[in-house]
């Protein structure tokens, strides 16, 4: 688990995402760093220079200069940052449009329901993967609900809250999306690399918020097809319990929720 | 008053434009819930308009005669005289504050607190207001010897003068030619 979940910390500290959509985040990290690092160093350099060069030294009396305005310099440090943020905005605008695109013909559509404090993943044939974390042991990964999806295909996730505000967050996807009652949220992911990725609710949702975790099991397409075919329609897999239990198609809250 | 009103009216114009752009963009691409943001922006620029136009009106009423604090060349003598009345210590704000806190507690624990808060607040407001009347009577041309101690005595502050050997005849032209 340790090796699996530890994200590669490169790219100026930001991990690479495993989805096609994450390339846009990566691009923006690069753009941001190209501007932020030189500007940051310049400002720190000027501050340090001023501190060293102009500090008061006993025995070396200097008359402090009493200038107040320098219009060309002031104009420069107004206009140049404007240009910089305009460039950043340009890249961002393009990236955001590309990343946010929702396919009219996704390969798989899955509904993600969040509730206090667990997840329910509903597949097109009515199959349900559901579960909550183990409130007594945060290190217990066996009981977590599992979101199964194919790699290299467009998976459309429809995220719905059954009670309070939650956030669907998979660090490896470099992506957060809120589950808000009354707001309909749909987004696409194309995972490029099969694997087991941890996910977690990322918005305070009550007492056991920290335990509201899940796993994303991304399978090669053929393996996914086989898995999907083996799930009877309207069956329920409760996390932590091996095998498929009989179930019924339902839209009700999964009994684990409200107090 | 001129600068003050321009600053506020500038903010009003900016927020009005901002609201217009946002409204248009929301109409094309926005989410239904974003109408709340439009409503809040409308209230915001309206508030600025209220204040900015009031200040502009005050400025117009002066027919272009600036106050001493609006003149670059004003001396302390230009503002000579009593500035305002400044009440000294008073218990009524604390009473009214306590009343307001009790009102707040009524929102948590029930109406009984509001009765206590009401008594405190009304009593304090009466005390506060009558105290104000008293000071208003006393102040113009006040003779401190005639004021009874034990009552709240308001004080009027007058403009202080600066006595120094240094020559302060710094002319406006020398120091800030870019001011007009």
């Amino acid at each position, binding site marked *: 688990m340790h090796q699996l979940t530890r*994200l590669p*910390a490169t790219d100026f500290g930001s*991990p690479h995402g495993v989805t096609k959509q994450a390339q846009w985040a990566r691009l*923006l*990290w690069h753009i941001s760093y190209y501007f932020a690092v030189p500007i940051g160093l310049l*400002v*720190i350099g000027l*501050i340090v220079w001023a501190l060293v060069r102009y500090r008061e030294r006993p025995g070396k009396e200097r008359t*402090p200069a009493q*200038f*107040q305005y320098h219009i060309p*310099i002031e104009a420069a440090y*107004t206009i140049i940052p*404007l240009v910089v943020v305009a460039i950043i*905005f340009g890249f961002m605008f393009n*990236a955001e449009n590309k990343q*946010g695109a929702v396919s009219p013909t996704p390969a798989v559509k899955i509904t993600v329901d969040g509730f206090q404090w667990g997840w329910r993943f509903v597949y097109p044939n009515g199959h349900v993967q559901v579960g909550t974390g183990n409130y007594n042991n945060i290190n217990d990964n066996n009981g977590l609900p599992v979101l199964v999806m194919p790699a290299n295909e467009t998976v459309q996730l429809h995220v719905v809250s059954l*009670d309070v505000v939650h956030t669907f*967050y998979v660090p490896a996807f*470099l992506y*957060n*999306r809120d589950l808000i009652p*009354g707001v309909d949220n749909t*987004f696409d992911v194309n995972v490029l690399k099969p694997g087991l990725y941890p996910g977690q609710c*990322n918005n305070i949702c*009550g007492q056991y918020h*920290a*335990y509201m975790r899940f796993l994303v099991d991304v399978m090669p397409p053929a393996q996914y097809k086989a898995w999907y075919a083996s799930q009877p329609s309207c069956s329920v897999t409760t996390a932590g319990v091996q095998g498929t239990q009989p179930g019924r198609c339902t839209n009700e809250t999964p009994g684990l929720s409200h107090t | 008053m001129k600068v*003050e009103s321009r*600053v506020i009216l500038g903010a009003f114009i900016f927020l009005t434009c901002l609201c217009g752009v946002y409204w248009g963009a929301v109409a094309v*691409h*926005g*989410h239904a*819930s974003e109408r709340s943001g439009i409503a*809040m922006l409308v209230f915001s620029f309206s*508030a600025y308009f209220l204040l900015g136009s009031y200040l502009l009106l005050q400025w117009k009423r002066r027919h272009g005669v600036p106050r001493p*604090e*609006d003149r*670059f060349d*004003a*001396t302390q003598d*230009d503002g000579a005289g009593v500035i*305002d009345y*400044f009440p000294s*210590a*008073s*218990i009524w*704000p604390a009473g*009214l*504050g*306590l009343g307001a*806190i009790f009102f*707040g507690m009524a*929102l948590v624990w029930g109406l009984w607190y509001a009765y206590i808060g009401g008594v405190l607040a009304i009593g304090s407001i009466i005390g506060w207001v009558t105290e104000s009347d008293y000071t208003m009577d006393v102040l113009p041309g006040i003779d*401190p010897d005639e004021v009874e101690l034990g009552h709240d*005595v308001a*004080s009027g502050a007058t403009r*202080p003068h600066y006595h120094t050997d240094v020559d302060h005849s710094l002319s406006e032209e020398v*120091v*800030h030619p870019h001011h007009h």
Partner: protein
Amino acid sequence: MDVVPGPRPRGLVKYITSTDHKQIGLNYIVTALIAFVVAGAMAEVMRTQLIVPDNHFVTPNVYNQMFTMHGTIMLFVFVGPLGFAGFGNYLVPLMIGAPDMAFPRFNNLSYWLYLGGFSLLVLSFATNNGAAEFGWFGYAPLTEAIRSPGPGADMWLVGVGLTGFSGIFSAVNIITTIFTLRAPGMVMFRMPIYVWNVLVTMFLVLLAFPVLTSAFALLWIDRHLGGQFFDVTHGGQPILWQNMFWFFGHPEVYIIALPFFGVVTEVIATMSKKPVFGYKGMIGATLSIGALSMGVWAHHMYTTGAVLLPFFAAMSLLIAVPTGIKFFNWIGTMWRGTLVLNTAMLFSIGFLLQFLFGGITGVILAQPVLDFQLHNTYFVVAHFHYVIMGLVMGAFSGLYYWYPKMTGRKMNETLGMISFALMLIGFNLTFFPQHTLGLRGMPRRIEVYNAGMGWNFLNLLSSVGAYVTGIGVVVTVVNMWRSLRRGEIAGDNPWDGQTLEWACSSPPPDHNFEALPPIRSERPVWDANHPDLLTKVGH
């Protein structure tokens, strides 16, 4: 001087009944510092809980109460009111040459509402379900009565509401004071930058706090009168809360920041023995920040999928520009000056460094695509703590700078430098690792975490840093207490100050000024003391 003195009570009665802006300002400052220590202790509890992965130092509920009240008290009771009501009350009349605030009794009332709000927030821990535990921005519908029962949440509403009213009253008072009580010759464009910044802050308060109070009223109606504003099953909209809260919440960021921008501007100018570089540009930047800050609220809501991303991204990126202008103006103020590197100046430098980093990560977070990655992770926690800890540095800078004016004595420089060093090291040790934690996917507001995520060592580092910071803060608190009696006598103008507060005695008398120097530039005291070193004209 022709002042008719009223009877000034002494002792406890003085603290309760005073209408003197200086006394009320001191009341605010002391209360705010108590709030800082209280909420800081909560932070230490949180860092102790997170020091190892599966810790059970406190229960989940207690942890949730801790981060909720830490955020609430720090923002509503400490850093905001300290800047605009504490320093604001004390300094604004002095800096513009006024004898007092425009509404002295109203001013006293503001303080009592503020103290009442703070008291209710603290007392809410003593109720049967404990304090509020839904985070300082309290997203509905978690805040509805069935999910957050008990008086704790109501006390949170009322406590914050009272501080909000206090802020609105202060705003009315300070704006009126600045508009009507300036000394002759103190035109708007000669006011110290601090006064300008407080003025803009007060306008933001006037626009922002009523929205917050309205949102609170709606929530209270939901909780007690069966309203359904935020209940989706009856046609309400939880997202409405987020829009209203952040419409307050983003101006709030500048409400807490602008006064301290002003503080460091004053400190840097005085300690460099120079006029503020680009004075008018600085005012323009402040006004731009004030205007733009009304249009960026939804950048806290990028991941809701219910806001217009390009609009808010553009506004959020744009607001970085005036902030950048301020940075270069601060550097320009130091340029070719004579820098006195005492504790006040060091804290201002600390502010520059911390805030620079917080600003850069702010530009990163302003981009929706990157925010989708970083939203609500520890990267965000690191970002805003760099910003706010920068402001705390600014606050401490102000305390060391104006303490002599307020008490007549200087604080101890050695203790001050020790405090600065501990705080600088502690801050960075606490919050720098949190950037990496966020990049590695650690969500905020969790009290336990899986040991296999690669978060363990960085959390340990962060907790150690929190303890170091705590010691640094205690050193300054001890220094303040100790210097009241043992500090070096300061005199009227110990730093060769430039603005009007240094023209009166330390501490200033009732109604402030024995005499005023002629006001011919934005630094009349400097002009009077250094007629040979007037501001150079031209560019």
